[in-house]
């Protein structure tokens, strides 16, 4: 079996296919701290792709309340339990000082590929029952406990948070590894993972293998379907933007402005090529403020999360790996550049391929937790695939004073 380098694990691992042909990778950053679980993303996806017979229980995008919620129910804890049973006590990280090739240290446990035998299964997983696919928002807003005296940072005593989930378009997809007939495949041009509806025979090996359970069975066609990363928009073939790549429906519909999606350049070994001014590269590799979801599964997922600040750290370590503490520290006390880049979230429908910052004046200075903070009203500019400016936004929200004629609030 080929050896591939998984930078999220900081080590090589076994995977069914070689890397080396992929040019770009679909990636996104979701800021959990800002999500209000309005489900606008969910409905944007639903009304675009999954409104037909047989797709009733299919939610390519969903927002679930952690720690109890899950679609399908308990998808993550069930797999964590299977992995723990396969490698008791061994699923741990060797957290070390971050490097670009190993930003979170090294995972010394076993991936889902390494706990499978390769003969009956390519990846450890399970097939959820139809009951588990129902009630996609079960345990909505359910906290771990009631806090009668209120909750304070850094860790709330009673807590929950919203987890926004789409297909991770993994660099080493378990669905692709598990498909015995290569109906599931990963595109070279953007890394979007698709299931060929002409080849799929409904074996549901992908449903079983995907650790995030984002491949779903459709009973009316007896095949499996999955999130297609709105590929016509990402390709720029949607007539709306005239050949300029555009973000997906779930991203652009986000009213909480928690999402930023784009494409990053990929090296032959599967790592991200250095691209300092790509906002995704900056957030993931330079600031390391956004982290992969359950990196220990080993698929190198490509949706990155800014972890919620108020959640107990052991839970976040389990979900996002050892990088969670640093990510929260950087997000809580952002650098001047990070504060500017965070303004790019949902400032345009088009994919931002690069950004530039024009310095602005200092507009505030204060102290938080004994640390001096300064806010600069910098302007951040975003550029599309052709290098054209598509967004220009300042750190301080523009302030307008109404003229007198609106004094009576006659809008």
């Amino acid at each position, binding site marked *: 079996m080929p050896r591939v380098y998984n930078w999220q694990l900081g080590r090589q691992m076994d995977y069914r296919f070689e890397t080396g042909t992929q040019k770009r990778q679909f990636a996104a950053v979701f800021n959990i701290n800002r999500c209000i679980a309005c489900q606008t993303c969910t409905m944007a996806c639903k009304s675009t792709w999954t*409104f037909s017979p047989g797709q009733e229980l299919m939610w390519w995008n969903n927002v679930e309340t952690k720690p109890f919620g899950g679609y399908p129910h308990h998808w993550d804890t069930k797999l964590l339990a299977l992995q723990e049973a396969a490698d008791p006590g061994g699923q741990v990280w060797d957290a070390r000082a971050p490097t670009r090739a190993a930003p979170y240290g090294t995972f010394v446990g076993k991936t889902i590929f390494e706990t499978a035998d390769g003969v009956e299964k390519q990846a450890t997983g399970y097939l959820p029952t139809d009951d588990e696919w129902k009630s996609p928002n079960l345990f909505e807003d359910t906290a771990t406990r009631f806090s009668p005296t209120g909750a304070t940072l850094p860790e709330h005593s009673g807590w929950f948070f919203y987890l926004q989930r789409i297909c991770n378009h993994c660099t080493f997809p378990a669905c692709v590894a598990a498909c015995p*007939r*290569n109906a599931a495949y990963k595109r070279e041009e953007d890394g979007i993972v698709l299931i060929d*509806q002409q080849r799929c025979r*409904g074996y*549901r090996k992908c449903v079983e293998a995907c650790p995030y359970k984002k491949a779903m069975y*459709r*009973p009316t066609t007896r*095949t499996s379907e999955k999130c297609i990363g709105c590929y016509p928009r990402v390709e720029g073939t949607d007539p709306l933007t005239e050949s300029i790549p555009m973000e997906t429906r779930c991203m652009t519909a986000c009213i909480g402005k928690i999402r930023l999606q784009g494409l990053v350049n990929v090296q032959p070994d599967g790592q991200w090529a250095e691209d300092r001014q790509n906002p995704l590269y900056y957030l993931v590799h330079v600031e390391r403020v956004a982290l992969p979801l359950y990196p220990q599964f080993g698929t190198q997922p490509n949706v990155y999360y800014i972890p919620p600040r108020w959640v107990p750290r052991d839970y976040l370590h389990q979900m996002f790996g050892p990088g969670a503490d640093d990510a929260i520290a950087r997000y809580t006390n952002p650098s001047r550049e990070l504060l500017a880049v965070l303004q790019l979230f949902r400032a345009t429908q088009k994919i931002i391929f690069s950004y530039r910052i024009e310095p602005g004046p200092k507009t505030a200075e204060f102290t938080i937790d004994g640390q001096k903070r300064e806010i600069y009203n910098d302007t951040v500019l975003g550029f599309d695939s052709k290098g054209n400016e598509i967004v220009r936004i300042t750190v301080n929200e523009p302030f307008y004073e109404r003229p007198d004629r609106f004094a009576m609030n006659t809008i």
Partner: protein
Amino acid sequence: MTMHVRSRKLLVACLVLLTAAVLQFTGVNPAASQTVLLVAYESPRDPGLDPTSAAWDAVRAVEVPLAAQRGSYAAGGGSVATVRLKALHYGGSLYIRVEWTDRTENASALRAEDFTDAVALEFPSRTAATVPSVCMGQPDAGVNIWYWRADVDAGNVALAAAYPNMQVDGYPFEDDTFLTARGAANPVAADRPVQTLTSRLFGYLNTSPVQDAAGKGTRTESGWAVVFSRTFRSTGPDHADFAPGARTDLAVAVWDGANRERDGMKSVSQFATLQVAAASLPGGGGIDGRFIALAAILLVGLSGIGIGLAIYGAAERSRER
């Protein structure tokens, strides 16, 4: 003493010959690795696709052993030990009836965790340069597969069959474009109980552009009986062709839905030999000619042993005197 040894040898030889004759004429195959012969005689009447048709009553079943698929990913299966095959031809079409024991009826794959019972026949393609690998063929020798699934045959194709109380406000579009796999002409999504497939290596199962195999299954007391049918000659690329007087190979695979079997997780046979006989079904309606021959052999054999024993006994007695 010489007489004693010779008589015993004679007795053993008689028994061996008798056993061989019985095995030959009853079709019982004591060694699983030995090739099974399935003969398709011409039927005096149209057997049709109904597995309960009386046309099958006069046909002797051939037992084919199955084993779990362990050769390649995704390995598994093995829950069905054997199938009983019958074959006929009529009016230029081949009919093959497969029957197997499966106590659990799995004729719906509507829920995400449900898998259908299924069976498939595999033949070498007409273009095969050699006998193909029984494991889905090989690049220079393809195979032609007829695949029957219980769920579609039973008509369990709409969601209401699994969810009788479901309510939906409405669907904006209901044409095949939005039944994506069906819109892409994937035969899995077509409500057709038998799919015609070809393959030239495991992992490379393809849908044939010519879907010409037909079939129908029925639930028996202990399992399933399925009849497949197709004309001798097919226009499909990489399909098998048949002709009276010609032999080809035939393998069987069975999937048990209760065991979540699908794909390579199945019970498979080795290649058996299928002979399409130019002759009509012997003794169609009357006493089977083979039965008469068997009775004659048994009579002659037993008489021979009796005579041998009598001679031996007489000799012994005369020696004692």
